[in-house]
Structures are given as C-alpha cells and as structure tokens.
C-alpha cells in the first residue's frame, strides 16, 4: 500500500489541478466567444437564404442565356477552399474538416485555398499546392475579405485557371453537434430538368438575365463564403467548449482518484509508524 510515496501522489495532484485550471479557463473563454459567434450565424442566415433561393430561381427558371459560370466543364482543375481553425485543442474540429477535404480531393488536380492557420499548416505539410492569399488567420477574415476572395475566384474561374470550385467548412448544427460539409460553388448547375411551359419565367430581369446573373454570382459567392466562415467559427468555439468541458471533467475524476490514493497512503504510513513505535516500546 505504501509502495507509492505520498509525495509523488501529491505532485501529481498538483499538476492535475493546474491542468484543470487551464481547461476550465479555456472552456469559459470558448463559451463566451461561442455566444457571439452564434449570434452572428443567426443574424446572417436570412441573407444567405434569400441570396441562395434567388440564385436558384434564376438558374432554374431561365433557359435562354449562357454564362461563364453555368454548366459543367471538361477540365479537371479544381480549387478547394478549406476553412479550419487557427488553434488546436478543439476536439475533432480541425481534423474532421481536413479529413473530409482530403477525401473530396482524391484523384483530382487540386489547388487549395486554406483559411485558418491549421488548414494552411496541414496543406503545407501534405505538400499540396495552395494559393497564397494571406487569409491564414480565420478569426480576422472580414466580410470585405470574403467579397474580395469571391471576386478573385470569379476572375480565376472565368479565365479558366480552374474548372471547379469546392468549399469545405463545418456546419454549426447545435452547440453539441457540428458537421463538416463540402459543397460545390462553381460551376452552377441547373437542378431541375426541363419541364416545358412551367419553366417559362414571368420575372422581369433588369437589364437582362445574363447581366443580373453575372452581377449576382460574385455577390453570391462572397455571401456563401462569409456564411460558411460564420458557421465554422461558431463550430470551432462549440467544439472547443465541449472538448474542454470533458477535459475538465476527466481532470476532476483523476484528482478525486488520486486524493483517495493519497489519503490511503498517508493512513498506511501513519499506521506503520504507530506499529513501529509500539513494537519499539515493548
């Protein structure tokens, strides 16, 4: 029983306690950041829903125009935008989205655009080509940045540097569940098949469909990017909060366990001492 010295156990308890303090603090920081991020997600959702549905309406309801953004291309050059976090210690947040991105990228001619330090480091380590755009810091990317990225992507897509553009990010479902997702941004495809008569749209586009469409596409991409970024940020904080919460709980458990062992060892030492004294006095 007295095999482990009380001093050793005491040292371990002390180190566990300081770890617990750190995880507890990180959990609280994440919780307060999560609240802000969640608000941002909620306030921006109506915007994207509107943008998305109008976009689809135009794509689906009109047949008599062509656009560089519309229709499948033969080439295989892909741009993959990956949004991850800047820091670790967020449970499976970073690895989940990076894993998904890697599986989506398989057997394609891929260039990445990483957003977030973890994503940038990962692709550097894997030696996958990435666009240098200085958006490594996910926390500091603003709405304006999203629109300039979108404009840049549109330009690259139009001059055929890329034939496809994908985006991997993490969907913020609830505080307890976040799902990595991969969506195709470009080219845009018609989702509905031809249904004559019904397809004829009665919407007035000014000046005309193609112009409206080409003007809205960069807007749409910027919007989607910003939305994905908001979702990812909220997911990161939520994942970190959950991870740190369970780390704190584990630390608590270990401290309890070690305290018990410490008390037993101390008791054993005292008992032994008494036995020795009694034996000596006889």
């Amino acid at each position, binding site marked *: 029983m007295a095999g482990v010295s009380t001093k050793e156990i005491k040292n371990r308890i002390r180190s566990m306690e300081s770890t617990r303090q750190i995880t507890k603090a990180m959990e609280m920081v994440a919780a307060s950041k999560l609240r802000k991020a969640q608000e941002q997600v909620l306030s*921006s959702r*109506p*915007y994207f829903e*509107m943008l998305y549905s*109008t976009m689809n309406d*135009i794509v689906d309801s009109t047949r008599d125009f062509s656009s560089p953004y519309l229709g499948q291309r033969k080439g295989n050059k892909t741009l993959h935008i990956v949004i991850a976090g800047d820091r670790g210690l967020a449970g499976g947040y970073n690895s989940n989205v990076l894993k998904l991105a890697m599986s989506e990228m398989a057997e394609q001619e891929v260039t990445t655009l990483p957003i977030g330090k973890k994503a940038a480091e990962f692709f550097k380590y894997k030696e996958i080509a990435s666009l240098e755009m200085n958006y490594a810091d996910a926390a500091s990317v603003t709405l304006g940045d999203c629109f300039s990225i979108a404009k840049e992507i549109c330009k690259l897509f139009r001059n055929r540097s890329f034939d496809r553009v994908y985006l991997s990010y993490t969907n913020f479902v609830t505080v307890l569940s976040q799902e990595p997702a991969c969506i195709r941004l470009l080219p845009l495809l018609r989702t509905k098949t031809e249904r004559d008569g019904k397809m004829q749209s009665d*919407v007035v586009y*000014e000046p005309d469909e193609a112009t409206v469409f080409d003007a809205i596409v960069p*807007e749409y991409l910027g919007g989607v990017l910003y*939305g994905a970024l908001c979702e990812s940020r909220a997911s990161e904080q939520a994942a970190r909060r959950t991870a740190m919460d369970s780390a704190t709980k584990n630390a608590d458990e270990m401290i309890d366990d070690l305290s018990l062992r410490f008390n037993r060892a101390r008791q054993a030492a005292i008992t032994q001492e008494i036995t020795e004294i009694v034996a000596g006095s006889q």
Partner: protein
Amino acid sequence: MNTFPLRIVTPDGVRFDGDAEELIVRTTSGDIGIMAGHINYVAPLGMGQATVLAEGNKRYGACIGGMVSVVDGAVTLVATTFEWSEDIDIDRANASKKRGEEVLSDKNASDADIMLAKARIKRALVRSGVAGQRKLY
C-alpha cells in the same frame, strides 16, 4: 395607400421587416421605385440612397451592392451593406474618403489600388450624402 411586405437583409442581420408603401432604390441601371402590386422583378443594386416610405414616414438608407427582388408582391432587398441614415458614422465615411483621395493623388499607385480607392470614395460619398439627408426633414 396600399402597402407591400418589405424585408431588408444584410449579412449583419435584418434591417427592416414590415409593411412599406414605397421603396426607391438605385439599381445598376438607375433608380427604381417599387409600390404595391409590382410585377415579379429582379435587379442587381448599385451604390446609392434607398428611400423607404412606411406608415407615412420617409426613411433613408445608404445601400451598397446586392440585389432587389419582387416575388408575388413581397419585396426583398438583399444588400451587401445597408445603413439607415441615423446609423451612419460620418467621421468614418470622411476618413475613408480622405484615405481614398490620398491614394488617387499618389502617382505611383497601381491600377488595382486606384480602382479600390475610387470605389472607396464613392461609398463614402453615398454615406455622407445619405447622412446629410436626415437634416432636411
């Protein structure tokens, strides 16, 4: 006056959600006014002042980028940025204009920089113009 449901949404949140009598907004092909019973319509937005007439009151906003759509009588203004005249930070707009002008006066500025600076000045002018409107009534 007849009213129609109007929603003004931006990435920062919903700016207006209710019934309006008239909406005047600047599209890329010029100002348009929308009243109740408008035909289904979609147009991309330019940079300019938006006027909303609701419950007899006129409100002005600086509206930059995005699009306006009318679907079955419901009007949605999806704007990249939209600020009501009372929310506009004039000092910021003026500072932004000054920064833009500095770039324009710099002979070594690149074309991309000049384009950005011009857009910046335009936005600042729209904002300060709209902010000035509120004093008129």
